[in-house]
């Protein structure tokens, strides 16, 4: 099924080529899973080795766009890990309600499901009208999908179950219009979210926000890049701002552990000190 494993040197050279040519920096991504994804890419591209793949994408931007899909992991769900959203609702929202205007950053938003989840949650808590949600990713195709707000209708049974488990106050169908096999999220939600390109590997903080949600993004980074990324998230947070991570991620092993306190430790929700 997959091509032979790449050597560390081949991987390093390949990632240098990608960085030099396209300014996408995967050099500090966690190597073990990146190698697996590249092995799948080799099969899909019909290339025998990473040097061969590098030679191909170096002069072919369209091929690189296709390759991006293999370099990053773009999976998401509406209200994925419902208990996380319940904790945001119960523990973080009461603080958020005290701000006259709110900014929220979903870092690594993939195809946008998490941003829409937070928009729905904030709408139900009466906060959406004074909130701007920044949702960022490095993957242009995903950002386009996210901004359209159109999803396969077959996913909505699971989305709806998650929404209920997350403490949803109405019915998920209040927030979208189904049309044949797809569903479009409300304009009210879409206009509260600004989708844009941002890399935690190369860019810096761009706004001051009260809440950052960055879940299952850091797991793809090595430790030094995790430190850099968490530094960027911290810089974006206001004093006493909130940071939510994925449920197997933690600040414990990063350089920034002492700059946060655990607010809801089982949901990996932190507060900046």
């Amino acid at each position, binding site marked *: 099924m997959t091509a032979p494993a790449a050597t*560390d040197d081949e991987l390093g050279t390949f990632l240098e080529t990608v960085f030099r040519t396209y300014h996408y920096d995967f050099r500090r991504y966690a*190597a073990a899973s990146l190698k*697996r994804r590249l092995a*799948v890419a080799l099969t899909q591209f019909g290339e025998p080795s990473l040097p061969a793949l590098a030679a191909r994408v170096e002069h072919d931007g369209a091929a690189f766009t296709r390759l991006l899909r293999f370099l990053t*992991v773009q999976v998401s769900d509406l209200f994925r890990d419902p208990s996380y959203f319940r904790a945001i609702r119960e523990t973080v929202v009461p603080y958020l309600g005290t701000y006259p205007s709110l900014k929220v950053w979903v870092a690594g938003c993939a195809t946008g499901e998490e941003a829409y989840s937070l928009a729905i949650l904030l709408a139900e808590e009466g906060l959406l009208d004074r909130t701007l949600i920044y949702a960022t990713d490095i993957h242009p195709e995903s950002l386009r999908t996210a901004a359209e707000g159109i999803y396969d209708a077959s996913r909505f049974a699971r989305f709806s179950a998650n929404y209920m488990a997350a403490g949803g106050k109405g019915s998920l169908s209040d927030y979208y219009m189904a049309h044949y096999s797809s569903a479009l999220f409300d304009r009210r939600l879409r206009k509260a979210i600004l989708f844009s390109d941002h890399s935690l590997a190369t860019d810096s903080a761009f706004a001051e926000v009260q809440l950052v949600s960055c879940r*299952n993004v850091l*797991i793809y980074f*090595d430790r030094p890049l995790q430190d850099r990324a968490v530094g960027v998230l911290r810089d974006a947070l206001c004093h006493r701002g909130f940071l939510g991570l994925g449920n*197997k991620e*933690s600040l414990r092993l990063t350089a920034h552990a002492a700059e946060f306190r655990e607010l809801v430790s089982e949901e990996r929700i932190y507060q900046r000190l």
Partner: protein
Amino acid sequence: MAALPADCAVSLALVIHLPATRPSRLAEVLGARCALPVREIEDKEPVVPGVVFVAPPGYHALVERGRTFALSMDDLVHFSRPAIDVLFESAAEAYGDRLGGVILSGANADGARGLAAIARGGGVCVVQAADTALARDMPQAAIAATPGARVLSVEDMATWLGAVARDRGRVPT
């Protein structure tokens, strides 16, 4: 696992195919029967002896060269995340011949590629005797991919694992 001594000298990681739809009680259930602490792997934590690390449902667990764990949400492998192949193949690269792989009962071919990778790296391979397994597909696929693997009943495997754990990873003959 009950045969593992509290002063276990080897590092242990475990993958079980479980649905990701709810939090797993696996660590709790296993912990009650094991002298060692049992817990779910957290991203980037070092692989250390004396703990039974369990891959969390919904994530692949991998070992990096620097001998830390890494998690990913890459595509399912053999309809499963976590998948045994993913853990074994990455661990084979990180540990080479300082590694043992054990395949137990299971309903698909996951683990066969991974066990073969461990064998290629010079590691030790053990497979549960298929006629003692609840589901035979997994041990049978593993044996087909690694014919040199040692085949043991679950009881003999417990004895064997206990001996490995006590003897700093030296494999008893």
